[in-house]
């Protein structure tokens, strides 16, 4: 028997840390049953000691990491996912984790969860911080008032976790449902809930829905519940009466009345069990840190400084060194394979497929991996310490002007390094509209892979003004992103931006284990992509480059299918001033990785590298068309790796939309740049 356990809790309560601690390396990403959302689950490894002496020791439990939420009212996508999972999937138990330093607000979700009548255990996390501050929580008293098991733990230190696992499995095996669910004081709200429960008891019963939960949902005005329960017009009428009467007697509206009822009950419970002397050490420290990091004048400069440092370390020092070593390793293995295949006497076509196609293609993408992982290490650090929420706080106003929220800023910045991690980082955005819009404009931030292209053209055409050209391109990418966002905001994504309601958690040292797992997960994600989509794409490009339209192997690329396609599409670039099949072909191969533009030009011109290549390129076009070509390279659709993650994050249709949008924008802007440049 495998038990299903749902891990539910507020944001910033240490849920992920606990999940990592409990499931370790067994976790995997997959579609959650009952809801069409991807999420993580994993097996709890600890052995269970049954309290009745039976020998069911080898119970396995699958833990589902549900999104961090503050309520299960179905308003945000995360809330809907959690609610649907709990109601449709009937987990054997809920593991509700709470931030004990902020127990009052955390218990609100607990009260809602209890109404679902699913066996449940509370994990009071960060109990060590509560104790260190001289505060205390009387766990026995709390258990008594809430009529539910509670275990004090520290997920970061691992304290209390084995006891927690025992209790949760115990609750799941013996189906210990929350005993007390009547949280209302006698009064109008209490009356309304009980009349409502009476009215719908049969409906809820026949559909196997938790009665009390349905009753409160109806009072709060959740219309989906009316349908779900199959309530007829007559009953709906009575239902309306009950709520209006309650609103009149309580002197407030239905939503506020229910929320207030819950918070009033919590106040009663915490008065008995929570003894608070003052803020925790972490909270006091956070105030001091915030005095600097979100300072009125220093806040933004400090943020830009931190980001520059991360970029410098990632793309200048650590990541680059690691990537260089890594590509040396790849080159070495490629060399070995090359020699081995030659010695074996493999058919030259296959030899070329393996070495020039697979090894070169996948290898060039793989060599990015260390850089991306280093970047992700820093980002995980910003996220886990709590700084990311401050970035959103500081930058919100600026982003709001272009129809996004502060939460989109960091993904956009990462885009200057590489679009792949940038697009993956949009997962932290809660609104799907914001996420799509951010992904649409991220590739306009000039990624580091485009640098070799800029370097080649800048030195060939503008040897004295190379730096100026680079700055021009970076600024143009940023400007186009802003204009594109404004355009999208008023056309495709007209929806209202979600309100910006964000908790600022206390600054904390991140858990080493959690960080390591998060990096490992990103690496796995990247590797899977490298060996599926990117692998296929490189083979396709290799094939196009090495065969002619009659499927004969060619020695001269100018006769290949790729050249034919390049020649066919070259006229499209006529208005941009570069009607040369070699340039259009380079743009196609640039889709595998943007540096490939340079290597393709090297092959097609036969000029090799360095100054000779520069001279060859210079003979192909004017400097105005060179600027247009650079502009197009900067803005057109990103490489396959980025497209693959885009597709994964926002689906096939949106991904195609993004590609078309970016390429059309690139053409238009390049056209404008070319014609302005012609004037000089």
């Amino acid at each position, binding site marked *: 028997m495998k038990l299903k356990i749902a891990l539910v809790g507020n944001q910033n309560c240490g849920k992920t840390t606990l999940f990592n601690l409990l499931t370790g390396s067994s976790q995997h990403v997959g579609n959650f049953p009952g809801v069409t959302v991807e999420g993580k689950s994993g097996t709890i490894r600890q052995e269970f000691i049954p309290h009745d002496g039976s020998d069911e020791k080898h119970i396995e439990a699958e833990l589902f990491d549900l999104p961090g939420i*503050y*309520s299960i*009212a179905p*308003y*945000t996508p995360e809330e809907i996912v959690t609610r649907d999972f709990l109601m449709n999937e009937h987990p054997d138990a809920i593991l509700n984790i709470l931030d004990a*330093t*902020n127990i*009052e*607000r955390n218990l*609100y979700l607990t009260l809602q969860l209890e109404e679902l009548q699913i066996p449940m255990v509370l994990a009071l996390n960060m109990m060590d911080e509560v104790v260190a501050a001289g505060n205390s929580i009387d766990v026995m008293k709390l258990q008594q008032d809430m009529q539910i098991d509670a275990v004090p733990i520290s997920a970061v230190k691992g304290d209390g976790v084995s006891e927690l696992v025992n209790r949760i499995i115990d609750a799941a095996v013996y189906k210990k449902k929350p005993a007390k669910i009547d949280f209302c*004081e006698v009064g109008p709200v209490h009356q309304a809930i009980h009349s409502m429960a009476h009215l719908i008891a049969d409906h809820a019963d026949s559909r196997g829905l938790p009665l009390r939960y349905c009753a409160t949902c109806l009072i*709060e005005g959740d219309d989906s519940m009316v349908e779900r329960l199959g309530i007829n017009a007559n009953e709906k009428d009575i239902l309306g009466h009950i709520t209006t009467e309650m609103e009149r007697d*309580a*002197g*407030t509206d239905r*939503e*506020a009345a229910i*929320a*207030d009822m819950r*918070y*009033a009950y919590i*106040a009663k419970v915490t008065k008995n069990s929570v003894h*608070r002397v003052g*803020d925790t050490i972490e909270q006091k420290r*956070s105030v001091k840190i*915030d005095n600097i990091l*979100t*300072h*009125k*004048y220093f*806040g*933004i400069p400090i943020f830009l400084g931190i980001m520059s440092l991360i970029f410098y370390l990632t793309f200048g020092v650590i990541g680059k060194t690691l990537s260089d070593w890594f590509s040396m390793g790849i080159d070495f293995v490629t060399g070995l394979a090359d020699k081995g295949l030659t010695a074996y006497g493999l058919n030259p076509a296959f030899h070329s497929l393996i070495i020039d196609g697979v090894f070169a293609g996948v290898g060039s993408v793989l060599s990015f991996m260390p850089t991306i992982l280093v970047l992700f290490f820093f980002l995980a650090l910003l996220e886990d310490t709590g700084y990311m*929420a401050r970035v*959103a*706080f*500081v*930058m*919100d*106003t*600026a982003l*709001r002007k272009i129809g996004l929220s*502060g939460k989109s800023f960091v993904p956009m910045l990462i885009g200057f390094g590489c679009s792949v991690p940038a697009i993956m980082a949009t997962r932290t955005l809660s609104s799907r509209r914001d996420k799509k819009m951010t992904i649409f404009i991220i590739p306009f931030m000039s990624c580091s892979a485009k640098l070799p292209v800029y370097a080649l053209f800048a030195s060939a055409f503008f040897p004295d003004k190379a730096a100026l050209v680079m700055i021009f391109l970076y600024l143009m990418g940023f400007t186009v992103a802003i204009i594109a966002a404004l355009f999208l905001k008023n056309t495709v994504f007209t929806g209202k931006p979600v*309100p*910006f*309601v*964000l*908790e*600022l*958690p206390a600054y904390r040292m991140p858990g080493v284990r959690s960080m390591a797992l998060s990096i490992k997960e990103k690496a796995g994600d990247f590797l899977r992509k490298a060996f599926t989509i990117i692998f296929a794409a490189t083979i396709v490009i290799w094939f196009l480059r090495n065969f002619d339209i009659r499927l004969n192997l060619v020695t001269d690329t100018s006769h290949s299918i790729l050249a034919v396609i390049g020649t066919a599409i070259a006229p499209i670039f006529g208005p941009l001033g570069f009607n040369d099949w070699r340039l259009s072909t380079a743009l196609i191969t640039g889709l595998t990785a943007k540096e490939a533009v340079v290597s393709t030009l090297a092959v097609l011109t036969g000029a090799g590298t360095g100054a000779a290549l520069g001279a060859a390129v210079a003979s192909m076009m004017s400097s105005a068309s060179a600027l247009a070509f650079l502009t197009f390279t900067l803005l057109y659709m990103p490489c396959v790796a980025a497209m693959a993650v885009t597709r994964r994050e926002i689906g096939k249709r949106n991904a195609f939309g993004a590609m078309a949008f970016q390429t059309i924008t690139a053409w238009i802007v390049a056209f404008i740049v070319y014609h302005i440049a012609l004037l000089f």
Partner: protein
Amino acid sequence: MKLSELMPGQGGCIKVVGGEKALRHHLLDMGLTPGTQITVRKIAPLGDPMELTLRGYELTLRKDDAAMIELADKPDLYACASCSASCPYHSLEKAKK
């Protein structure tokens, strides 16, 4: 007075939470119920959003959304009509009676 009109360091007792349905519900769930004590800790460097302290935690809210939250005027305790049992002023008044 509206929450959005407060300066850093100032606070008050929430009287009415307004706004569009989903946002309002979210705010209520986050503990911004009538009768809750709330303080403005800081305004972001660019003038918006605001950092608030309530129920022992920190929350940020844009001024436009904070304008939907009406505070009770401190001197007039009875203005806080829909005040809950968890409101410090309210319970103080109750005790006096």
